[in-house]
């Protein structure tokens, strides 16, 4: 089976994630879309490792997973505290940091 399909799937997943980040307002959904993008990248890293016959890409994928796990912890904590103060999980409501 050609590795191209994996790359195409990866691109598709990344695009869905990116569009989701841009168009959705619910912070949890946006967060999940970010995870989707990260895992799309992981998929392409692993695929490239396979194509090149080297382990570098797979190692890199582990790193991404670790960073993503840490990011989930911090991000969810932020979303939790915003929800507690503003009673809303819409990211458009948290717009005080501006000009």
């Amino acid at each position: 089976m050609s590795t191209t399909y994996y790359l195409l799937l990866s691109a598709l997943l990344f695009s869905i994630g990116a569009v989701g980040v841009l168009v959705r307002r619910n912070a949890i959904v946006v967060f999940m879309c970010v995870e989707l993008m990260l895992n799309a990248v992981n998929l392409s890293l692993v695929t490239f490792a396979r194509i090149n016959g080297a382990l570098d890409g797979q190692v890199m994928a582990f790193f991404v997973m670790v960073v993503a796990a840490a990011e989930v912890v911090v991000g969810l904590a932020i979303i939790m505290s915003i929800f507690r103060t503003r009673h809303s999980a819409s990211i458009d409501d948290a717009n005080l940091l501006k000009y």
Partner: protein
Amino acid sequence: MTELPEVLPATGTASLAWLLFALPAFGALVLLIAGRRANRWGHLLGVATVAGAFVVGLLIFFDTLALDPDQRTRELSLFQWFAVGGLNVDFGLRIDPLSLTFVLLITGVGALIHLYSVGYMASDPGRRRFFGQLNLFVTAMLLLVLGNNFVMLYLGWEGVGLASYLLIGWYQDRPSAATAAKKAFLMNRIGDVGLAIAIFLLWTNLGTLQYTQVFARVGELSGGVLLAIGLLLLLGACGKSGQFPLQAWLPDAMEGPTPVSALIHAATMVTAGVYLIARTHAIYDLSVQGRLIVAIIGTITLLIGAVIGCAYDDIKKVLAYSTVSQIGYMFLAVGLGPAGYALGIFHLLTHGFFKAGLFLGAGSVMHAMHDEVDMRRFGGLARYLPVTFVTFGLGYLALIGFPFLSGYYSKDRIIEAAFAQEGWQGWVFGGLATLAAGLTAFYMTRLVLMTFFGERRWKQLQTADGQDYHPHESPAVMTIPMIVLALGSIGAGAVLSAVGLVDWLAPSVGELVEPEGVGAVPHAAVPWLVVAISALGVLIAWLTVGRHRVPVERPAHVSLPVRAARRDLYANAINETLIARPGIWLTRALVYFDNRGVDGLVNGLAAGLGGSSGRLRRLQTGFVRSYALSMLGGSVLVIGALLAVVLT
């Protein structure tokens, strides 16, 4: 070129020469620092220090007189003033016939003026400070004439400028006095710049500023440099001595108290220019053009002074313009070169006596007439002020060159020397100097007639504060200096020419070269000619002023020359148009350029940045999704660029 004398170290009495300037300097220091405590005895200290300096001067003079003429030039090195790089300046004094002559004039006449001021300033609350500043003036002038290098000369030169500024502006509450002081200071500054540049030129070309070395090596200079130095020194001399074109400050300097006018006009300050040219005669000896320009400046000035003197009604201003004119004679004399240096100094001495006497006399008249200076309000004062009248009259006769009084000896010899010049110079210099002698006789006779003779016009008039005039003779402390100076006016010329002033000065300014040949007018005829012209001037004054009633109000409708003379021959207008106005315009243009150009650029840049950042910050909306979009867009752009580079 004249032989330069050998310079010996000063020993014996001459080593006391530092006392000459140290005494008045001590007086100035004490009087200006001690404050009110010194009020009771301050004026006495002021007189004593200058009189003491005069005594020291006399001692050194007699000590020098006992020496051979070629041993009379001595130097006293006190200490090293400063050394910077190759420039090594000694605080040294040069004691030679020229400087001693000036020392005796400055301290002698200066002491008399100090004595007179005790009476004149008796009612002034600032008398102690006044004496402090007078002492400072004398100190500076003594440093100027005693220094043995150009830096010392410059020190004294600036000191004189400072002291004159303080004293001319003595009546600080009078705006006109403050303006006159500033004007004197500024116009002097123009001259000072010339002197400074001349000194720089001497330093760069010769590497020394000691008189002895400079004069010995002046022959190494090229003609152009020599001429430039000569002209710049002349500019300095013109500033200090009130010569054309810098003469306008001198009459305004009359705003100061009368003793100050006497001091400025007779003993100090204005004589500095003549001293400078006589002292640097080694430079002028080598520069014929430089000398010619000095003589031309002198001739223009003596004419200007005499013409304007005829038109003024202010007794002090007439005397001031008379000084301008007489200093012009001295410049003419020193401009004649070896034939005239000594004659210029000779006239300076006799002039010092009679002009100081005239100013003190004018001060005495003002003292008697509530500080009135308008001669049209005087008249018939001879009976009320007998001593002033007699002393003033003697000064007057000396000034107009009445035979066998001082002015006759000195002025006639200058005119003789002028006539003896070759070609057109003899005719022009001699003729104009003779004409000015006639004008001098006219304006001085007019002054005396209007002040001391004729109708007592003040009887019908009142002072500015509404009182009657009560003319009264001045106290003895004022009349005694006037009497002494009047004796000087009678005898100075005859005595000085009998004892051989000219030979005495020879070691300093070179032997006097007697003019050869007939010149423009035969030698023997000159005195007759001058006396005749002067008599004509007196006669015209008698016919036009003495025989008529003098109107108290100044006639408004007068002929063009009188109108021009009343406005100082437009000297102030010319200065204003040519220098002051363009200067103001330049300043305004520069201020405008600075405000609009430089400041505009800086402020505009700041405003532009502020405005654009104010608009740019609107991009920060606070919506996370829009930031995410811009990140995506940015990433796409970067990747696209990378791909574009990689693929090509």
